[in-house]
């Protein structure tokens, strides 16, 4: 919240939300919001609040996701298979291409994406994950300029959750349900298409001041806090106390073999995880000439290729691959980046085709062997 001072909450209505979308578009931004497609929420370009999934909520459990009609909220459904990660850390990214051949070969770096974007409806877990990816992809010696370019021009309208899915466990990970950082504007939806809005940056404050709004009353502020508190009551949790050390010291826990018998090593958990950042690079050569290009694409530690070195794959089967993923996410991530790599969004639970539950696995691994 740089320079925003103490944000003063205001109330906006559906017209205000439309005005916000229009104002962001008028800045030359592509405005992305959650819409219903093929039975789930996905972030796509929107032009008006009417395109949001009003009156829909999500029903989630292990390997199960359905949208169903319920209530009248615009942001009743919590999340979809992929959050805002694919907007910033795109599934494919060309890095460079060549022109010419032999000694005259020239490497042309891929220009940075100069599209300015705004996302409406990012949740607290999305923003916690974005902060994790910021650390991984923008800090240190080997930053990703493509990520940084998209991130730098992103305007974030967060939505505080007022309802939790059965797979949510952000409360135990201290990442939600209220967004605390990483947004320009945060909305909390109250009944009747009213939104309590606060700014989180100068740009957010300037944007809010241009929208039709009314000061929020103390009662409205209290209602908003109460609604967010309601989403804190969650069915799942991870006890993170001492967990990194427990995971790192139990590589032979029988649970690893048990979970491996169920794991498809299909990589869906890593594809939907909002913090997973691994990429591989593929060289694409031309049939006709010497031109070549190098493209980065999302990779997964659940594939054989991921740990392939001279002589074969280090992690040959599901047991070692699942152990690697979970131990990294909830353990060695702390050594590497100073925080956990899980934000409690629950996507890996819902979108695992066989419903493997990270909260159950973590609890089982915490229990002593045998």
């Amino acid at each position, binding site marked *: 919240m740089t320079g925003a001072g103490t944000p003063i909450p205001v109330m906006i209505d559906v017209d205000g939300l439309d005005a916000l979308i229009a104002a962001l578009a008028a800045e030359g931004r592509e405005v992305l919001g959650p819409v219903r497609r093929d039975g789930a929420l996905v972030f796509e370009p929107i032009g008006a609040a009417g395109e949001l999934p009003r009156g829909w909520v999500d029903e989630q459990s292990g390997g199960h996701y359905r949208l169903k009609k319920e209530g009248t909220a615009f942001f009743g459904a919590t999340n979809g*298979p992929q959050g805002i990660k694919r907007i910033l850390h795109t599934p494919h990214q060309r890095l460079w291409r060549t022109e010419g051949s032999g000694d005259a070969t020239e490497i042309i770096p891929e220009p940075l994406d100069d599209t300015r974007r705004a996302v409406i409806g990012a949740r607290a877990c999305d923003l916690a994950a974005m902060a994790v990816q910021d650390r991984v992809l923008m800090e240190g010696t080997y930053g990703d300029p493509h990520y940084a370019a998209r991130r730098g021009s992103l305007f974030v309208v967060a939505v505080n959750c007022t309802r939790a899915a059965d797979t949510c466990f952000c409360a135990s990970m201290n990442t939600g349900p209220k967004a605390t950082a990483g947004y320009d504007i945060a909305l909390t939806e109250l009944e009747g298409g009213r939104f309590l809005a606060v700014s989180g940056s100068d740009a957010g404050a300037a944007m809010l001041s241009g929208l039709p709004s009314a000061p929020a009353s103390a009662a409205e502020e209290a209602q908003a806090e109460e609604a967010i508190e309601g989403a804190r009551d969650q069915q799942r949790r991870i006890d993170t106390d001492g967990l990194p050390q427990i995971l790192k010291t139990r590589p032979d826990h029988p649970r690893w073999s048990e979970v491996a018998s169920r794991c498809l090593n299909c990589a869906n958990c890593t594809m939907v995880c909002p913090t997973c950042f691994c990429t591989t690079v593929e060289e694409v050569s031309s049939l006709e000439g010497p031109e070549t290009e190098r493209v980065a694409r999302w990779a997964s530690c659940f594939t054989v290729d991921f740990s392939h070195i001279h002589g074969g794959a280090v992690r040959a089967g599901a047991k070692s691959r699942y152990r690697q993923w979970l131990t990294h996410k909830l353990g060695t991530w702390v050594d590497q980046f100073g925080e956990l790599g899980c934000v409690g969004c629950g996507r890996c639970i819902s979108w695992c*085709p066989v419903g493997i539950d990270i909260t159950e696995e973590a609890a089982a691994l915490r229990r002593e062997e045998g």
Partner: protein
Amino acid sequence: MSARPRLAVWKFSSCDGCQLSLLDCEDEVLAVANAIEIAYFPEATRRDDDGGHYDISFVEGSVTTPHEAEMIKDIRARSTTLITLGACATSGGIQALKNGADVGGFIDAVYAHPEFITTLDTATPISDHVKVDFELRGCPISKKDLIELISATLAGRTPQTPAHAACIECKLAGHVCVMVAEGKPCLGPVTHAGCGALCPGFARGCYGCFGPKETPNTAALAAQLAANGADKRAIRRLFSTYNTNAPAFREEAKAHE
């Protein structure tokens, strides 16, 4: 290679769909023709097999007749690099449904003059008969994979046709999982990538056209399919299509008899 490498395209028991993918390359087909000498390709040219040596042989189809079992040995002997195209050549194809079944009964039921039919009791992949240098998956193969295979072969590098799950392509494409969001049976989690998640992109479950992926856990997937309501017959049939003879799929189908 200073001269253009000589290519032959061979057909065994198959539908021709995979070799037609080469003609279907449209934009790239001229580049292919410039890069390699298409010396023998009956679907595209009238030129006969000159009996000589080929730098690259593409083989489509399974070995289903005694004649084919002999022919593949000759082709192998005359080819520097032998590459199989598609599910038939790589696992035996849908015709491998006859493996273990009453082949004589099928012939009597289908043909007016069964005495003209000479066939083996099995349809088997090329690799059961000769050494294969590379297998391109799919029913049919994907154009993208084929172009990549040709580019890589010409450049002397390994083609990038990852053996991981079709799910990865599905998520890269941004499709919504039809199994999780709709409860549809889908073989994506055990199927080799390559098609670009074509069927899930059209709200259908994966049919497993590209065959088993690396380290497939078919038993865990079958258990979930059953939990989602599929009976034994449905599970058996799902694993018994274009790659019915691929060991992982064959064994899983058998487990649901």
